[in-house]
């Protein structure tokens, strides 16, 4: 643009040359002016866009406080909650714990270990009544979360002396992964090794189950333990923290009262698909027969009719049922607590912001709540005892109840023997502690919800599209206190007898899809291991293989390993299984009768006896393995035998065998449907 000035000065000389030149000049001047104008417009606008700021007082950037000790001292906190969190859950738990501290007269803060100098832990004792809580999540293959990596490294290399440091750890993880809660476990162990004092047990949270529930129950026992440790008096507010407020209804229309529904009012009267956990289908029971021929147990086979419900299922799925409590227990509770169980009530959440308006569907009666909605047969958790203690008029009873809820060794031992080992449920506790008379509404607030029970479906939808079969054993046992405890769902199912006199026995149910499935190709061999009621899903599998055969499909080897106590007593589905064997649908039926001879014989022994065949089926023929039944012992013992077979016949080391089986699991060729 500067050039234009020099051009301008020389222009007058050349102006005389003629028209074309003038037009060029015109173009030149025009574009120059146009360019200038546009430039000015564009850039002036930009210039105006920069507002005039007052001289900003930029505070000298605060040297980020990396000492959590200093921060705690400055803000008067005595509890610090560190979190190793990837998805934010660990952090959320840490925040909740730090807020909790207030209720107990203490002050807490949550802290990200990545932002602080963790080696300062040894200084924690500079603060009175201090405590470090750790909410540590495990990531991937037993690894720390990103924000806890440095802390983890420090723990490994450090030889700091953490004497005088109080700590607790809550671990977050997922049981289906091998390194379940590895990080939480490590932190708990290591801190103790370094001399720190563990003031409460490691909490284990399982995301495969219910992480929130695990956290809440751990937390409820944790704080009383903290108070006890520091000799801190629980504040008055703490001893009776009601979450809900009781409202008694005088004259309420019957149509507005819940009588056992889980979601929509009248959903039991006006049934509408789709059916699920909030809207179960009331399925009529068409068959209910005893399966065992002898012995003192009662094993049963039930058939639930799902015609017209549009419910679909596949063999291997689970059926969920909503049981109700024994009316005897409910009536006794009413008597002991001296209330009219048919009072219509609502329990309304005092926290209006909460999504959970009521602990169970309200308005309803105490009778309905105790029958349909609340668990009254499990042993109450320690936090329930703690909350109820205030209602024991006998000081000794009150003291014992508080003790059982504490983390002192005597308290824990007392809880273990008096409650757990003696299988005392809430009714037993009320009967055995006559001075304990809580108000029924507070009790209703404290008792856990009655959960649906799941059963592996014992039928194939290809053969029984409108019927769902259940195979279960009735739970009943004598307790140390001379009482008879009965399993809620199994006793309730036992009494669901199909009748002819118009009043159908119905079961509120829905289907929970599982991933326990026959192989896609029917030509794949299957090895099914299901002793006792573990045979349930395999009845469905075998029925389906029979159906496939009928359809003309090529069906591979179908091998069953079943176990029971006595051939003459509890050989479940003996006739059906032997028939399938005869028809060659079941290519091999192996049954172990554990108590028919002196030495105990179980399914894993039979498996071992057939090791060459088993190995051939797995290694050459692409067999899929299925295990159903007891998780604690049977599943583990069976897995060990598979390791042994792989080692022996596959020429593998133990580690290689373990890897081999693990790979089968990853590839979906080794599935388990087990319960504890």
């Amino acid at each position, binding site marked *: 643009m500067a*050039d*234009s000035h020099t*051009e301008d000065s020389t*222009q007058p000389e*050349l102006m005389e040359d003629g028209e074309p*030149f003038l037009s*060029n*000049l015109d*173009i*030149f*001047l*025009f*574009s*120059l002016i*146009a*360019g200038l104008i*546009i*430039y000015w417009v*564009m850039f002036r606008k930009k210039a105006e866009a920069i507002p005039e700021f007052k001289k900003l007082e930029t505070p000298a950037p605060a040297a980020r406080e990396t000492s959590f000790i200093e921060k705690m001292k400055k803000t008067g906190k005595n509890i610090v909650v560190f979190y190793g969190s*990837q*998805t*934010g*859950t660990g952090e*959320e738990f840490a925040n909740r714990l730090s807020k909790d501290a207030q209720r107990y007269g203490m002050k807490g803060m949550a802290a990200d270990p990545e932002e602080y100098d963790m080696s300062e832990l040894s200084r924690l004792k500079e603060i009175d009544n201090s405590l470090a809580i750790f909410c540590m999540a495990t990531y991937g293959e037993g690894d720390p979360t990103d924000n806890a990596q440095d802390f983890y490294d420090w723990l490994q290399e450090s030889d700091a002396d953490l004497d005088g440091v109080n700590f607790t750890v809550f671990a977050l993880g*997922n049981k*289906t*992964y091998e390194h379940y809660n590895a990080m939480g476990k490590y932190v708990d162990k290591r801190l103790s090794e370094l001399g720190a004092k563990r003031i409460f047990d490691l909490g284990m949270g399982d995301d*495969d189950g219910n992480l929130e529930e695990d956290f809440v129950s751990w937390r409820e026992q944790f704080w009383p333990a903290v108070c006890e440790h520091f000799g801190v008096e629980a504040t008055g507010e703490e001893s009776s923290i009601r979450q809900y407020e009781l409202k008694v209804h005088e004259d309420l229309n019957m149509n507005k009262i819940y009588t056992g529904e889980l979601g929509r009012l009248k959903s039991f009267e006006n049934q509408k698909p789709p059916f699920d956990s909030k809207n179960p289908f009331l399925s009529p029971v068409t068959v209910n027969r005893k399966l065992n021929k002898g012995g003192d147990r009662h094993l049963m086979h039930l058939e639930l009719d799902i015609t017209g419900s549009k419910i679909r299922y596949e063999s291997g799925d689970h059926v969920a049922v909503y049981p109700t409590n024994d009316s005897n227990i409910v009536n006794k509770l009413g008597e002991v607590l001296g209330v009219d169980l048919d009072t219509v009530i609502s329990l309304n959440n005092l926290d209006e912001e909460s*999504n959970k308006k009521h602990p169970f569907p309200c308005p309803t009666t105490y009778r309905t709540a105790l029958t349909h909605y609340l668990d009254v047969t499990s042993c109450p958790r320690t936090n329930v005892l703690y909350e109820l203690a205030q209602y024991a008029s006998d000081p000794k009873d009150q003291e014992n109840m508080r003790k059982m809820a504490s983390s002192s060794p005597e308290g824990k031992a007392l809880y273990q023997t008096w409650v757990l080992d003696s299988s005392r449920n809430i009714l037993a506790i009320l009967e055995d502690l006559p001075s304990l008379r809580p108000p029924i509404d507070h009790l209703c607030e404290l008792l856990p919800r009655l959960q649906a029970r799941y059963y592996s479906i014992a039928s194939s939808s290809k053969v029984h599209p409108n019927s769902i079969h259940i195979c279960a054993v009735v739970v009943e046992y004598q307790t140390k206190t001379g009482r008879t405890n009965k399993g809620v769902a199994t006793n309730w199912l036992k009494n669901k007898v199909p009748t002819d006199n118009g009043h159908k026995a119905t079961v509120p149910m829905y289907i*929970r*899809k*599982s*991933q326990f*499935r026959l*192989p*896609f*190709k029917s030509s*794949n061999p299957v090895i099914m291991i299901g002793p006792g009621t573990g045979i349930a899903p395999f009845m469905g599998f075998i029925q389906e293989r029979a159906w496939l055969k009928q359809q003309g499909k090529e069906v591979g080897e179908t091998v069953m390993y079943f176990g029971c106590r006595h051939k003459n007593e509890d050989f479940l589905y003996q006739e059906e299984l032997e028939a399938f064997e005869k028809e060659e649908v079941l290519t091999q039926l192996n049954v172990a009768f554990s108590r028919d001879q002196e030495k105990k014989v179980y399914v894993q022994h039979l498996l071992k006896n057939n090791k060459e065949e088993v190995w051939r089926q797995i290694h050459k023929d692409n067999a*899929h393995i299925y295990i159903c039944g007891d998780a604690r012992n049977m599943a583990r013992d069976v897995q060990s035998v598979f390791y042994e077979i792989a080692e022996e016949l596959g020429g593998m080391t133990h580690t290689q065998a373990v890897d081999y089986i693990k790979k089968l*699991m*990853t*590839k*979906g*060729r080794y*599935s388990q449907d087990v319960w504890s």
Partner: protein
Amino acid sequence: MDSKTSSKAANKAGSDLSEQIKEITKDAHVRAENTQLMLNYQKGQITQAQYKLLLCSLYEIYRVLEQEMDRNSRHPAVEPIYFPQELARVEALERDLEFFFGLQWRKRVTVPAATLRYAERLREIGRSSPNLLVAHAYTRYLGDLSGGQVLGKITQKTMGLSGNEGVAFFSFPEVSSAHRFKQMYRSRMNSIELSEEERKKVLDEAVKAFEFNIEVFDDLQRILSITEQASGGSGEGKTPTTPLSAVSRSAVAQFTLGVCAALVTVGMGVYAF
């Protein structure tokens, strides 16, 4: 990815498709995790504008993928891995889009070129080689059931959402255990019968599937950076600044100046000679 590499991977991972596919896509997987968009996402540095745009692309991709899967549901290479009840994402995505864009969300969905290319590829293989659909289903769905679950929690927390609002995409209510479902899905993958040749193609397609996703992430990142620059660095999208208007304003200005400079030069040239 040439056939030599894919057969090498095949050998290392044994003969199961699930293992081979995991092996061959290992590198691509790492690259996908390390795109700028994903890195930001994992750190929780995702804005609502970014998430909304991502949802639009996911919707287009799953809409076409699920359409092609439905159409080919009886095909021997699709039937074993066809789980519409458990896996289908379209309905969940529609709910999330309605949550963020309102009832007129259909008119407001915008996708970058990379998403359209991805969708086109899905349509193409759905039409002519349904064998290859498993490569894409594996890449998307198993990803959603794994790392996707983590992203879901991050999204919910970062955006302060409650319940399932806006994050229905990440939730699989019909899958009671993601871990076990993946195991079962792998056994289904392994039951698909493929010739050597067909298998190599599936493995190559799996790598392509990752590439398509990476391109989509990068495209989204590009769009979002321009938007941020134009609206003065605030990526919150307070003003409806579409990328187009931002680009055009500066382009027009540059063009005009260029024209003027050219005319000045021409004028000078003519004058000088």
